């Protein structure tokens, strides 16, 4: 087990042209359970392959516990990796599959067998132990692939590249729990790549959000939800994502649609007020029939019943705002007033969040349940 550090990593697949990863500095701490989250093609898999040694970075250093391993092949890095689609040695039985990585590294056969049996028990594969792996179902196959990663005791980290894509939704939850259990028992560093935010948020202690070859934010699931550091995080995390409204500034007071909402105080704001944007999650928008200080006039465009809550599409001075409300709201077409929970209203300049902003109003609504 080790701390894995990426220093100044840039990777280009063809040696020049667009970078798949752009100047990444990141540390995976020993024993952490991390999720690597981002849309398809943002460089997640590239990053995993750089860590495991399947790729060598164009620039920068990969270090395990401070030792530069950038030039080492995967065999010498002690990394386990699970791929999106099950990879099995089809001519072998399930337990032969599990023994394979151990035997390749010179573990004695009885030891390897004991270890394989332990992992079979852990993943509930014991009944299939002597079956040839070729005829297994898709999720049993992926379990065996997971098992081949978990079976190794000496690994610096286990990397998962969207491993549950082929698994039935009902079984996904159980598998994620199994992975968490394994993590608690063995204490490996786990890095879990996914583009599914629920998967990332339920699995990980800390989530690294990537977009277009860059790390946008590395934080706990709560912080990603409450305090996105980048507009991309606001949009990508949450369902639906954060609402954004153009804002303007007069002195230290920031207003949206001529209603004063925020006080930036002496926070450092870069030049160019036209790039100021206010952000609020749909969960923190409340709808009221009457006007009050800090409320913005709005029109209800559409109402959607999501079962336990309603999702409203509103128009606030021409901008589209989504609200999630618990009580039965006004009908489509009606006029109303919206209030943004002051504790959760954020200010962005360009794409980046502005820190040290205080709300102008206390607000009466309070936060709606998430």
């Amino acid at each position, binding site marked *: 087990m080790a701390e894995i550090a990426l220093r100044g990593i840039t990777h280009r697949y063809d040696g020049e042209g667009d970078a798949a990863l752009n100047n990444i500095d990141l540390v995976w701490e020993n024993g952490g359970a991390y999720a690597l989250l981002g849309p398809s093609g943002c460089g997640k898999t590239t990053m995993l*392959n750089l860590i*495991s*040694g*399947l790729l060598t970075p164009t620039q920068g250093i990969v270090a395990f516990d401070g030792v530069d391993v950038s030039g080492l*092949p*995967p*065999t010498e890095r002690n*990394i*386990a*990796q699970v*791929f*999106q*689609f099950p*990879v099995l*040695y*089809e*001519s*072998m039985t399930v337990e032969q599959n599990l023994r*394979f*990585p151990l035997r*390749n*590294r010179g573990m004695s056969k009885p030891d390897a067998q004991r270890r394989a049996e332990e992992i079979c028990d852990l993943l509930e594969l014991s009944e299939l132990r002597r079956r040839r792996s070729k005829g297994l179902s898709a999720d049993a196959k992926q379990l065996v*692939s997971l098992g*081949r990663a978990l079976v190794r005791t000496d690994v610096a980290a286990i990397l998962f590249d969207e491993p549950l894509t082929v698994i039935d939704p009902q079984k996904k939850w159980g598998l994620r729990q199994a992975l968490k259990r394994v993590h608690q028992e063995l204490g490996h560093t786990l890095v879990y790549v996914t583009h599914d935010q629920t998967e990332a948020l339920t699995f990980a202690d800390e989530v690294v959000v990537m977009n277009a070859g860059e790390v946008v934010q590395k934080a706990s699931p709560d912080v990603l939800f409450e305090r996105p550091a980048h507009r991309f995080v606001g949009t990508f995390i949450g369902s639906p994502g954060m609402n954004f409204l153009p804002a303007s500034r007069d002195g230290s007071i920031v207003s949206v649609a001529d209603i004063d909402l925020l006080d930036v105080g002496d926070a450092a704001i870069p030049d160019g007020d036209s790039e100021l944007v206010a952000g609020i999650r749909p969960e923190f928008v409340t709808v009221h029939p009457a006007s009050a200080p800090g409320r913005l006039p709005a029109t209800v465009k559409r109402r959607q019943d999501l079962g336990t809550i309603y999702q409203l599409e509103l128009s606030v001075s021409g901008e589209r705002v989504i609200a999630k409300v618990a009580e039965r709201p006004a009908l489509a077409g009606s006029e109303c007033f919206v209030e943004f929970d002051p504790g959760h209203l954020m200010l962005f300049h360009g794409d980046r969040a502005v820190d040290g902003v205080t709300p102008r109003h206390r607000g009466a609504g309070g936060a709606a349940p998430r």
Partner: protein
Amino acid sequence: MSAQLKPRDNRGWLFVLPVVCTIAFTAIVPLLMVVNFSVQDIFGINRVWVGAEWFIDVLQDRSIRDSFWRNIAFSVQVLAVQIPLGILLGLGMPKKGVMASVSLVLMALPLLIPHNVVGTIWQIFGRGDIGLGGHVLNETLGITYNYAQDGLDAWLTVLVMDTWHWAPLVALLVYAGLQSIPDDYYKAAAIDGARRFAVFRYIELPRLQAVLTIALLLRFMDSFMIYTEPFVLTGGGPGTTTNFLSISLSKIAVGQFDLGRGAAFSLLYFFLIQVFCFVFFQLMKRRQ
């Protein structure tokens, strides 16, 4: 109910008729003629019913039996040489870039050459007086080599020639099979610390099984019916050393115009091939 779902329409027969006629004309009627010949002794217009005598005669014929074992030995050697060689070539061919195309074209080149031309090329190439191969072996390396006089030389020449002609087919099939293995398998093997031979043994070989079965079948059938190359090279000689079944058959049926014997021989040959096909088919089915 089923009659309603599947209406009888006898017009279907009309569409099959041309094929039935063609096959009857080119295959069924000639085959029945052969059966007809095989049970008679024919001298011009005089025909004598002989029953199974020709068959017994052919089965007891020493030289035909020798030819049969020669065929088996040849096919076994062809498979033992060409399948491993084809696998090695397929593994060695570059997977990407210009060199991949170049090697594909070079590999396919021998496959485009007709059998008798292959025979002629090697017949000249192996000659001691005007052939480069024969000259180098005899004069430069000092190995006495003469396919026209030495049986082993003739045998090896046919084997080498056949390998030159057909090992590329195995290589191309293997190459195609290798292309279909997802990259993740190789990555997983690298992560699992597998050495090169383990990658071949546990990833490549299992995934090449289907392709190799086809290669085995094709190469067996082709080598078992070998005719043209030894015919062009030595006409089955020297002596009877390259006298394969098909050469014996054509000597009897076309050379000596011994229709009864030839017919019985060819029917047995035909039956033999059917048996091999059946065995192969059963093996393939069991694999799947």
